[in-house]
């Protein structure tokens, strides 16, 4: 493990950033003396100080506390929804790219329909139909991600399928599903990692957008999206609210991207000594 970190700096930095954020989320109660919905109307929109590390928002709530607790929701939602999108999209993409023909045509048209909705509208639709809860939030953010994963996986699987090593596996008696998961899937991984890390950021933003539209996590549980949106109205008077909320999103996305790129390199046999 340490060797990996030493050799792949990007994995080390990415892991460091993500684990710090994860730890603060887990130990949030120990890291703050305020409650996330503790209103203090005397100290509204206070600038960062020793008492309030990241200042306070328009209700006088401690931004640091809300960011800490917000990480719980935001990380859960982004990870789960990307996992949902990946599972649906990559599975069908792999299937279609490998078998081609009729199944490819049929699934492809269904994915086209999904893609024809703007992602946010689609999220709203699912969110409205399922009602507000964390799980439904993950589904409504995750399902619109599926067509992207589908397209990338399918395209990669189509090109991998042309290689002679696929025919070679077949000639040895490797069954379709074995060939698909042992040969095609690992070789589509580089393309998948790129989409994976970039969609992680998309999921966090989608979650905040839904939160802004009132279809997010039931209040008062904070999420980063909610922190940003609540601070938006006072962005000139109290830039620290949106600023620190946004900073967390940026850091998380950066962490995922570094980890994703690093893992891609780590898994590439050509870069191994």
């Amino acid at each position: 493990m340490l060797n990996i970190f030493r050799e792949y700096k990007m994995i080390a930095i990415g892991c460091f950033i993500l684990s710090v954020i994860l730890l603060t989320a887990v130990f949030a109660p120990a890291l703050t003396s305020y409650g996330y919905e503790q209103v203090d109307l005397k100290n509204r929109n206070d600038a960062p100080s020793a008492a309030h590390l990241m200042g306070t928002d328009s209700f006088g709530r401690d931004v640091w506390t809300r960011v800490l607790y917000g990480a719980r929701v935001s990380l859960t939602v982004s990870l789960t929804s990307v996992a949902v999108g990946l599972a649906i999209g990559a599975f069908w993409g792999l299937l279609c790219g490998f078998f081609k023909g009729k199944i490819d045509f049929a699934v492809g048209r269904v994915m086209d329909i999904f893609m024809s909705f703007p992602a946010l509208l689609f999220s709203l639709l699912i969110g409205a139909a399922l009602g507000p809860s964390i799980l439904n939030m993950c589904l409504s953010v995750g399902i619109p991600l599926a067509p992207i994963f589908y397209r990338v996986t399918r395209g990669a699987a189509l090109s991998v399928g042309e290689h002679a090593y696929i025919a070679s596996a077949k000639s040895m008696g490797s069954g379709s599903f074995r060939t698909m998961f042992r040969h095609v899937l690992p070789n589509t991984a580089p393309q998948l990692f790129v989409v994976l890390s970039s969609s992680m950021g998309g999921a966090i933003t989608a979650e905040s957008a839904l939160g802004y539209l009132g279809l997010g996590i039931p209040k008062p549980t904070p999420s980063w999206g909610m922190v940003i949106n609540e601070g938006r109205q006072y962005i000139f008077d109290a830039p620290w609210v949106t600023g620190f909320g946004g900073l967390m999103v940026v850091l998380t996305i950066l962490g995922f991207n570094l980890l994703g790129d690093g893992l891609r390199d780590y898994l590439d046999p050509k870069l191994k000594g």
Partner: protein
Amino acid sequence: MKNMPGDSAEDILTLRNVCKYYKDRKGSGHLLKAVDGVSFSVRRGETFGLVGESGCGKSTLSRVILQLEPVSGGSVAFEGRDFARIGRRELRAMRKEMQIVFQDPYDSIDPRMTLEQAVEEPMAIHRYDRSLRKTRIKKLFEDVGLPVNMLNRYPHQLSGGQRQRLCIARSLALSPKLLVCDEAVSALDVSIQAQILNLMCDLKEEHNLTYIFISHNLGVIKFISDRIAVMYFGKIVELASRNEIFTHYLHPYTCALLSAAPVLHPSMRRERMLLTGDVPNLYNPPAGCVFCDRCVYADSRCRSEAPVLRGYGEDRQAACHYAGELPLKVNWGGAPC
């Protein structure tokens, strides 16, 4: 008639009127006849050479033989068992008996597998015992001349020749009876080609193999084959033993093909039988003999009636109406190889 496809015990593989057609992608309904009515049998223990210019259907034929693609017509039978009539399970078991070595060693090994995994894979698929696998991998590495300390390397760390050795080790893992080598040395340097060819000759003895050796390289084919079939435009135009085909060819296309092989020594420069025209349109082949448009001897019969592969004495077959009657120049001075 001798040597026509039959179920003789010495025949390991029998092809009867094998056809492979592809539909035109644009949906015009035209059929592309990649392989059209090919019949021959391969005898146990021989090296059967298949030669022809690019695009003549050699590789398609190899894919059909290995059941990587279904036939459009005709039948392929391995040791008397017709592939079309056996179930999935049996086909899986039969895949052990015949293996393929592909042309491009850079493309035919999964880049994410170590050499050990690559050689182990066929044995894992067929549920070989784990300890048996380990000993077999070492043995196979030794057989093909790869150092055993390379087991944990990745394919990209190998040279082309080493990769092809790995491919051969992989294809031998299941102890097949028949090995189809589809341009197996064409992608390699000439010096490496010789090494691999010698290796294949040794392995043939050691493992009691039968080869179907596909190549466009006449020198290679002449070196390794016992019998040679010449393919043109999806059909076998001539089939004979190696010595016969290089000296007493019966088909004008064979004559032209042999005359096209370059000769090394400058003093051996000689006249060539130059063909005019081009390979026929794939979607619109000529009505008669596929070679009639380019053949200097073609007459009205050739243009209307397709010749069939007929026997001419022992071990010789040709698909030409006038086989044996044409004044073909024999021996183009300094045969290739």
